[in-house]
């Protein structure tokens, strides 16, 4: 189909409908509310589909849990403070191996923070977020087109691995408008995942639970989750490399920060500096081998994030000491400009003697 101009929030919602999302449960919070509104206007009218404005983010994610139990594709969306409220049920879904798509159009924190775009939920997203030993897949698009594409990917990965998937955007990606092309038509009937609980018709009854009073049994659940996480780490990493072939300095950035860095790198190249960018699309699993590979040709890395430095931990763990990593970040919802990042790149380039 032809490209249409849409906000990121609306693009996610439309992509979710086209991915066969049957149930959406939301709660208003800036800067993702347009996603909820789009679902209210569009999903609620589709045959067999459900939209509910829940009484809280907690209720919304637990409705997702319930819908997922039946095998339906279910989604909720929120922004940072609301994501904190959802963590309990995400932990339960991880333990119960229930798929779901959870969108976080993140904003400045901590606390009520600000409504401006920020990337300070990296730790919460990539380290499980709630209690217990678990992971969620985390996808970090950096354009409206990618928001749409990765929404579809998120539903597929959630079903494939029976795991909650976080789509981590930010207020800027959610609010800005860009041309987007949808590659799928919405299914006439929403798909139902086999194995869901819809009553024990023609089979023995089943139950889904996360509690056991036997630590050995729970240990085995943990190890079985761990084995699945290993599979995901092996098969599902995704990243973008931009002008890295001859780069001596590589900027690492994700999401909207990578859009800003791209402009800075293009200008740095025009000034003759050999700079490139490594952008993880999957934040968990982090594409560590792909990043490590770059350290064969580049020694210097500049980690740029719109926070106080969170992904830098994964950058350093991936490089395993084989790169020199510097950090530049702006927390609190401040959006740095490309020229600001270019100044940082230029200073580092000369400080490290890369200008020959």
């Amino acid at each position: 189909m032809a490209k249409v101009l849409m906000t990121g929030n609306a693009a996610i919602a439309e992509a979710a409908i086209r991915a066969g999302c049957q149930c959406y449960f939301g709660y208003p919070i800036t800067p993702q509310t347009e996603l909820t509104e789009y679902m209210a206007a569009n999903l609620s009218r589709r045959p067999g589909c459900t939209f509910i404005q829940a009484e809280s983010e907690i209720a919304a994610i637990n409705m997702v849990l319930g819908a997922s139990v039946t095998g339906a594709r279910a989604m909720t969306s929120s922004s940072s403070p609301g994501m904190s409220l959802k963590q309990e049920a995400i932990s339960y879904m991880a333990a119960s191996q229930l798929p779901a798509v959870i969108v976080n159009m993140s904003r400045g924190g901590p606390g009520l923070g600000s409504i401006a775009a920020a990337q300070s939920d990296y730790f919460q997203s990539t380290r499980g977020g709630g209690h217990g030993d678990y992971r969620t897949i985390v996808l970090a698009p950096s354009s409206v087109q990618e928001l749409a594409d990765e929404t579809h990917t998120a539903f597929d990965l959630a079903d494939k691995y029976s795991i909650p998937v976080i789509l981590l955007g930010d207020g800027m990606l959610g609010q800005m408008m860009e041309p987007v092309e949808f590659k799928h038509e919405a299914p006439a009937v929403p798909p139902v995942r086999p194995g869901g609980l819809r009553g024990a018709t023609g089979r023995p009854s089943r139950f889904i639970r996360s509690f056991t009073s036997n630590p050995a049994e729970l240990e085995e659940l943990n190890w079985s989750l761990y084995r699945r996480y290993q599979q995901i780490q092996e098969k599902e990493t995704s990243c973008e490399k931009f002008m890295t072939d001859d780069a001596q300095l590589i900027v690492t950035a994700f999401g909207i920060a990578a859009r800003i860095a791209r402009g800075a790198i293009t200008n740095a190249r025009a000034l003759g500096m050999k700079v490139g960018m490594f952008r993880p699309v999957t934040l968990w699993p982090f594409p560590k081998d792909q990043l490590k590979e770059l350290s064969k040709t580049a020694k210097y890395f500049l980690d740029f994030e719109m926070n106080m430095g969170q992904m830098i931990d994964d950058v350093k763990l991936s490089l395993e000491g084989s790169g020199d990593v510097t950090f530049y970040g702006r927390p609190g919802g401040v959006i740095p400009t490309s020229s600001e990042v270019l100044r940082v790149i230029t200073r580092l380039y000369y400080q490290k003697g890369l200008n020959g």
Partner: protein
Amino acid sequence: MEKIFTRPKSLKNAVFHYCPGCGHSIVHRLICEIIDELNIQDKTIGVPPPGCSVFAYYYFDVDMIECPHGRGGAVATGIKRAAPDSVVFTYQGDGDLAAIGTAETLHAANRGENITAVFINNAVYGMTGGQMAPTTMLGMKTTTSPYGRDPEFDGHPIKMSEIIGQVEGACYVERVAVNTPANIRRAKRALKKAFQNQLDGKGYSLVEILSPCPTNWKMSPVDSWKWVDDVMSKKFPLGTIKDTTGKTHAD
């Protein structure tokens, strides 16, 4: 010889872990009898909570999903909306339904979700060892109200059924008890009506069950049954609180 009493088909052949005199096992059996009588075993999904009844799925031979504490109303909403042909019931204690899950309960009722809520009120947090619940009686000693529940500091026992009765989406709210044979029969009639309402698409039904907890009340089972009549039901009167289904009283 005619067999006149047997295990309900939807009650698994397992030994209950509940304490002697506890009301849970009676309520489990009643629900299973109703599931059999309504012939809905193959489309029922139960939503048990954390708490003493966390192992409900060892006893009910229907599909079950253990949900986070207090979130039964929201989880059941998600199930019922995604699979409207299923029969969904929540099984919730007083800490669950009347404290941590107050919002989920009230709003599931207010949306008129077509589900059945079974509310076990035993005036304490049972599994954690008898702490004060929102339904603990005034003056009652628990491990977290060791000098007796004092309304000045702890508030009064909350009457959730009366609150839910105010909500338009709730079609049927009844309070029963399982401390005497007569009350158990009334409890079954109320529960059956609450399930039938769902089959008839009438909306949210809530049955509150005053349920003895001799262990945490530190009483003999017989004394605990008496206490339900003498003390608990004075604060939580038995009977129909709301019924808009147009049918006769469950009694």
